[in-house]
């Protein structure tokens, strides 16, 4: 699953496949943090919320 695992092979299939997984998980993680941190800052500074 990870490059340091004994079964890892440095070929295109591993880079594309596992790379996509890490990218997606990373993006989801970043988005969640973005929403959480922005919401927390909104809460702290009582910002006006535009209509959804």
């Amino acid at each position, binding site marked *: *699953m990870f490059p340091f695992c004994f*079964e890892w092979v440095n070929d295109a*299939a*591993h880079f594309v*496949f*596992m790379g996509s*997984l890490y990218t*997606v*998980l990373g*993006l*989801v993680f970043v*988005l*969640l943090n*973005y*929403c*959480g941190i*922005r*919401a*927390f800052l*909104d*809460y702290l500074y*009582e*910002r006006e*919320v535009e209509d*959804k």
Partner: protein
Amino acid sequence: MDSALIPEGVKRCSFKKFAIWIGVLTIPTLWGIYAALLCWGKALNQTNLNNNFPFGFWIVADLGVIALGAGAFFTGFLRYILKIEELKNIVNFAVVIGVICYASALGILGIDVGQPLRGGFIFWHANVHSMLTEVAFCITCYFIVLCIEYLPLVLENRRIDAYRFFHFLSHRFHQAMPAIAAIGVFLSFFHQGSLGGVPGVLYGRPFAYRSGFLVWPWTFFLFILSAIACGPCFTLLITWITEKITRKQLVKKSVKETLAKIAGWLLASYIVLKIIDTIYWASSTAPRVGINFKSFYANQPYGIWVLITEVGILGIIPAIILITKQGRSNSALLILASFLNCAGIFMNRWIMTVQTLAVPVMPFDKFASYHPNWQEWATTLLPVWIGAMVISLSYRYLPIFPQERELNPA
């Protein structure tokens, strides 16, 4: 009793009535849970699966429910990426249905595999060349995405929304929704396709095997197209059922017709490509390994009627209804077409898995038939009851339908 939790401006039945409804759903749920415990406790001999049919009803249900749940990502794609604003009135419900469908798929898989506690091995020892690995990765990630898409709906519950932080949080989630939807589209494209790749790469099973483009068999693309064709129709079907039970109109007819039109044209495209694929498979792919395709349909119940039903009755007919204005605007025909569409795709999943295994490959091998037993039925229907409970709770306490107030003035 729970009026503080009910969205503003809408009416709901009494809590007592609701509790009875949930109680009624609990009974078949317990039956399903009992069957699941039997399978986990006593092993998979509890089913009608055997060495000829390692895949059976559960796999069909998995593939089927994921195809039906494609309405979530596709409606999200139409709403957030293609900016079809009208669909904002049904996308929330599509997400709820999607969450239920994908949770069902994961739950059924947890019962289907022989060693569920080793489920993590598909990640830890992943074979990157296997279609099933791609399926597992994408479904897991997409389920996470769906939960993230569902979360703002929960946060918009009146009581939860009263807390300022959650109010801001749901707002920020809505802001990020196009990005989340885009990730969902990417993941869904690949797992819907990989589910098609699951039978399509089986070069030892000429009934299922297809040639294709690079590493992807044609079934990869056919499964994506069939999923986005039936997903919106499944959303329409469940909306109709919900409207019947709640005795309210929840979504405007125009929204339904827009979704139906899109689904209809996708279904029509799918049927055309499916027919081309079938002709090529019958005239080229199968004969290359010495098989006359008629031999695939030599044993009942898998006669040629299967092909005619799947493509004709459950494919061409609903496509015609959905692409014509007269068909779409007639509510009864719309629902009939949606049902036939969904049934056709479900049947396709059965054909690509169970019929594939029924057809003997070694000429001296015998044909065997399979049907699911009560444990398989009970566990497969379990998501239906739980899904009904989730929809009931979501409908009762969350503002799922933006047009409800307008369509049902107090």
